[in-house]
């Protein structure tokens, strides 16, 4: 396989240079935290030793999980590398007033504590002077102040779009509301629901929450919702007006998947168009795939050496794409082996794969007019357990000493083991795998390796069937189209980052 390609080298170099420039630009920023220009009033806060962003979020926003809010006010290269002495821009406003309030309250508490301490020490002094006992400090009575709470406004309830009812016949209803103008004293909200009968409380949420999804709504049942403000005393006297009647129902089309559907339709149209061209007799030229061109040669090598060939069809079930591609390659390998009268050893890990490959081999011998040469034992189901199967493959390699080995399908860590074991017995190895990590292992260990879509193209390529070749041509055109769409998306993302448009939505699906 030839790795060197001038065009690819230019692209790789350009990419590398660009990446280095971007990395340098990032390094050029000496300070790890810089304030962002914002409209609202802000102040600077210095990070203390041992302080984390979560600590600061609790201080300024009242919630440790709100640390990402700092990103709206600061350019932070890496939130994990915040150092003592870094200066953060923090908002002055609702949140700040809270921290101020907390600060003031704390200050008041400290002051009164000092006053109390002063009084006690005075009493101790006078007690010593007067030889009297110290009067016990009366415990201050807890005063719960329950201010009048305002109820939330604009309560809306809608059936969650693009979903269906679950097995229990329950669906989702999304309830949203707005905070009242006066949020003083509100520590949370309660969601109340009325279906059949009286209103029932569903859940209590924090004061910052303004959306709740009720996933327990019975399909077809109409509901109304009310939201209640909850004060510090846990009492919720202030309930909002009811939402409009709403019921949960299953939807017949998932709008979130519309772009997938559009893409699928476009792909299908292009594929069908090229299939039509292929059937009309037009020449279907597709690029050469060296690894597949070598298959005949590799099987031939086994025939010349008088040793068998081996085919390993991965560890996945027949419904996976890579296993299905492996079936197609196996057909060609088996065809060549029948022509050259070479034995093919096929130890299988998955029962259904065993059934398909055995049947395939039998049909190939029958079609070749030599059903008598078909040996049932050439394809053998071994074991479903992966480590045990690896041992069996090693044993088969030692026992049969195949001159050529084919690995097609889905593989995990065993790819490296197979490739090395095959190399140790001096076999020529051809591999094809969908998983990029295992592909890397196969590239290292095998003589020929199919990368990415080449695996899925293998069957069509090897059969040289005009219609299947046409689908490969369509696949190449689709790839060009996808590449152009991606370029367009990159352009839009760079030059109009805030825009929302079809291309970006399509790329995000």
């Amino acid at each position, binding site marked *: 396989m030839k790795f060197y390609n001038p065009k690819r080298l230019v692209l790789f170099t350009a990419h590398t240079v660009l990446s280095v420039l971007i990395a340098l630009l990032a390094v050029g920023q000496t300070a790890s935290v810089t304030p962002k220009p914002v409209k609202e009033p802000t102040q600077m806060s210095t990070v203390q030793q041992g302080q984390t962003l979560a600590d600061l979020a609790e201080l300024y926003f009242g919630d440790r999980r709100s640390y990402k809010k700092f990103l709206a006010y600061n350019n932070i290269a890496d939130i994990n590398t915040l150092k003592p002495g870094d200066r953060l821009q923090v908002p002055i406003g609702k949140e700040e007033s809270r921290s101020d309030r907390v600060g003031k309250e704390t200050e008041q508490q400290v002051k009164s504590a000092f006053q109390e301490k002063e009084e006690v020490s005075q009493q101790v002094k006078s007690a010593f002077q007067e030889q009297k006992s110290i009067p016990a400090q009366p415990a201050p009575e807890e005063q719960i102040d329950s201010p009048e709470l305002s109820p939330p406004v604009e309560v809306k309830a809608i059936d969650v779009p693009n979903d269906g009812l*679950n097995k229990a016949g329950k669906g989702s209803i999304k309830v949203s509301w707005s905070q009242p103008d006066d949020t003083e004293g509100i520590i949370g909200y309660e969601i109340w629901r009325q279906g059949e009968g009286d209103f029932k409380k569903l859940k209590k949420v924090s004061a910052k929450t303004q959306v709740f999804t009720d996933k327990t709504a019975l399909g077809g049942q109409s509901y109304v919702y009310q939201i209640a403000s909850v004060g510090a005393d846990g009492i919720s006297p202030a309930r909002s007006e009811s939402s409009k009647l709403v019921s949960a129902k299953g939807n017949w089309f998932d709008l979130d998947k519309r772009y997938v559907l559009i893409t699928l339709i476009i792909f299908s149209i292009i594929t069908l168009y090229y299939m039509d061209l292929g059937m009309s007799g037009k020449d279907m030229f597709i690029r050469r795939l060296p690894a597949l061109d070598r298959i005949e040669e590799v099987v031939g090598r086994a025939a010349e050496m008088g040793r068998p060939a081996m085919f390993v069809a991965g560890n996945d*079930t027949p419904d996976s794409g890579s296993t299905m591609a492996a079936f197609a390659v196996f057909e060609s390998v088996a065809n060549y082996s029948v022509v050259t009268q070479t034995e093919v050893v096929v130890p299988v890990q998955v*029962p259904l794969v065993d*059934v398909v490959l*055995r049947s395939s081999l039998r049909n190939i011998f029958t079609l070749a007019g030599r059903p008598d040469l078909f040996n049932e034992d050439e394809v053998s*189901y071994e074991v479903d357990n992966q480590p045990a199967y690896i041992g069996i493959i090693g044993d088969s390699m030692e026992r049969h000493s195949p001159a050529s080995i084919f690995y097609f399908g889905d593989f995990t860590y065993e790819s490296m083991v197979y490739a090395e074991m095959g190399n140790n017995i001096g076999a020529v190895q051809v591999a094809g795998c969908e998983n990029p990590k295992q592909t890397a292992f196969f590239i290292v260990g095998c003589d020929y390796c199919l*990368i990415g879509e080449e695996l899925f193209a293998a069957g069509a390529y090897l059969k040289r069937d005009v219609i299947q070749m046409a689908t490969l041509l369509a696949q190449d055109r689709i790839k060009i189209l996808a590449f152009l769409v991606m370029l367009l998306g990159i352009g839009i993302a760079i030059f109009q980052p805030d825009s929302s448009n079809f291309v970006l939505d399509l790329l995000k699906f």
Partner: protein
Amino acid sequence: MQVALPVILCSLTCLLLVVTHFIPHEFSKVVLAEVKDNWYKLIKVAGFGFAIFSVLRTHIRRLQAQGTDWQYSVVALVCFLVFPMTYLIDNILENRALFVTTTYSSSLDTGMLSNKDKVKIENTDGKTYSGQIVKLDSKKRQISVKLSLTGSQIKSSGLKSGTQSFRLLKNDVVVLEKEPMKVENKNLFFQGAGRSISIKGDGKSTEWVYNTIVSPLDTTMFALVAFYICSAAYRSFRVRNFEAGVLLFTGLVVILVNAPLTNLVWNGIFTAKKTASQQFFVQDALINLKDWLLAVPGGSAGRGILIGGALGLITQSLRVMFGIERSWLG
């Protein structure tokens, strides 16, 4: 017809599954559940049937032929029989239940009791056991309760076969005052209790076989990967040309950074620097280089393969759906 029928069935099923992907309605869940839970399982079970037959045939033939290493076939066949036997033994031992039976007087109002009711029985010490009514015979005036105790719980419960005094409660209301009741320890497996049998894979003998034989062998095989990676790395990292040189350099950086010793030595040489750029280029240089190699060139190549693979998969699926790709038929 032999080819056309499966192809038509496959195309229709593909189409159905594609359509259900876009329909969130509960109807599509029913269809998917039908295909996945019933059709697919049925095919899978049939596949296992063929596989068992294939394994047995292969090893018996090897035994008959008495070829090289035929002894391993004996081991394989013994394992083939022993492992299912452990499941069988576990299930026979585990599928036991305690049945408590009593005869009630004609004055008892049985209107509040019915079959499958959840009830409790309480012994003279006040200890209660949950159970379910499995038989309510009004003619013989007999109630039979199956206690919710599994094989190992039966021993620890302290209940033994024989007649003891219990009272029967439903919803914590006493239905039957203290009566002599007959306790029987029955084996459901041989009694043909059918639906009462629960198949368990974690019985003692199964667990023993797994922990002492299967698991160590699996781990040994997995550990071998380390050696194979070493030998593959040795072959791959030989500098034969420019590309191999780049590969060697990249591999070396990644290996060095991932080794704890390198960080120790590096941090010992280059202690904390003053500025961020000094830290980036000197102290964290190796780590940054490794991250960049993995994220930029490695990540780009990986994404390229993934995108290409996804497109290839779509086209292959279309070929299967349109009925042009038929390799899966065998």
